[in-house]
């Protein structure tokens, strides 16, 4: 394995132990966010005749809960391969935005990492990494990212497997669990709303996405993508007017 000059360990780089410890601490709220969706995906795997092995093995491979849920739902309704792939592309289009924001962190990294590392780009990992300001060192970021992403993949697969086994028995806890993703992402974003552009982006993004999701007129994933785009445009206009 060869490392580029900027990716070589320095005195500032975190050792694996520190990166893994930080990732483990950060994963606790992420696990709360992932739990409901993982269990729902597991229950759906059980209800779909694709086989438990393929259903659970797809969890770390796709590594995007809403998209996997749409795959399972579409297969259950008899949809073809093309419909499934197009649906997944629409639902996961926000990954483009996440990738664009995270790209500077992948710059100067080894080639293998720039091809394989982005597999862990997903809502919680994006929220966790962009909330930290201590990952500027390339080696530190790589170790943290692999520890956090690997841990999240293990937890996610476990949750889907757990959903296959115990999902139907969850009963009344489902109501509170349904609120968990909103709570975690809100807790992640609220402390960052410290200036007018960020507030505008969040307010317009939230209002647009909420209204579209409530109407139920668009496929899953589209309200988030359109809301995010509206928020960024509105905040950009605000910033331009201010300056």
């Amino acid at each position, binding site marked *: 394995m060869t490392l580029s000059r900027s990716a070589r360990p320095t005195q500032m780089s975190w050792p694996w132990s520190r990166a893994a410890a930080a990732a483990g601490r950060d994963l606790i709220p992420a696990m709360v966010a992932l739990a409901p969706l993982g269990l729902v995906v597991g229950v759906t795997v059980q209800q779909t005749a694709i086989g438990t092995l393929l259903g659970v093995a797809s969890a770390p491979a796709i590594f995007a809960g809403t998209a996997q849920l749409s795959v399972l739902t579409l297969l259950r309704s008899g949809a073809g391969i093309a419909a499934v792939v197009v649906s997944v592309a629409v639902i996961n289009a926000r990954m483009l935005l996440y990738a664009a924001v995270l790209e500077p962190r992948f710059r100067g990294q080894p080639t293998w990492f720039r091809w394989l590392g982005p597999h862990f780009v997903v809502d919680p990992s994006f929220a966790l990494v962009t909330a930290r300001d201590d990952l500027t060192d390339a080696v530190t970021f790589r170790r943290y990212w692999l520890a956090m992403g690997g841990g999240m993949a293990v937890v996610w697969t476990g949750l889907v497997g757990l959903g296959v086994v115990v999902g139907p028995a969850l009963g009344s806890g489902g109501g509170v669990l349904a609120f968990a*993703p909103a709570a975690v992402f809100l807790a992640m974003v609220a402390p960052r709303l410290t200036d007018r552009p960020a507030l505008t982006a969040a307010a317009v993004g939230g209002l647009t996405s909420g209204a579209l999701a409530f109407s139920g007129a668009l496929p899953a994933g589209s309200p988030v993508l359109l*809301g995010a785009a509206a928020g960024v445009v509105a905040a950009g206009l605000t910033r331009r007017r201010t300056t």
Partner: protein
Amino acid sequence: MTALLASAGAVVVTWVLRILLITLLPAARLPSAVQRALPLVGPATLMALVAAALFGSPGGGQPAFLVGALLTGAVAWWRGNIVLATGVGLGAVALLQLF
């Protein structure tokens, strides 16, 4: 076989979306106006996710969820502690659903 191919297709298309602006067309090559807007993507997308989860999920938009969201946001903004804020919000929703 359809399930296997559809799952494989989902894996490939998701991976391409993830690497497109990192490895294939690095975001550094995007127009400067787009690059200036990137820091705004985080707040906009995360709040869009929150709103979609609050209003788009089954049972979404119910008062307990909205009260829980208000409390979660307030505690997170005040203390900056994700676990504490999440716990307060989930606890509030659990309590409200009991009554």
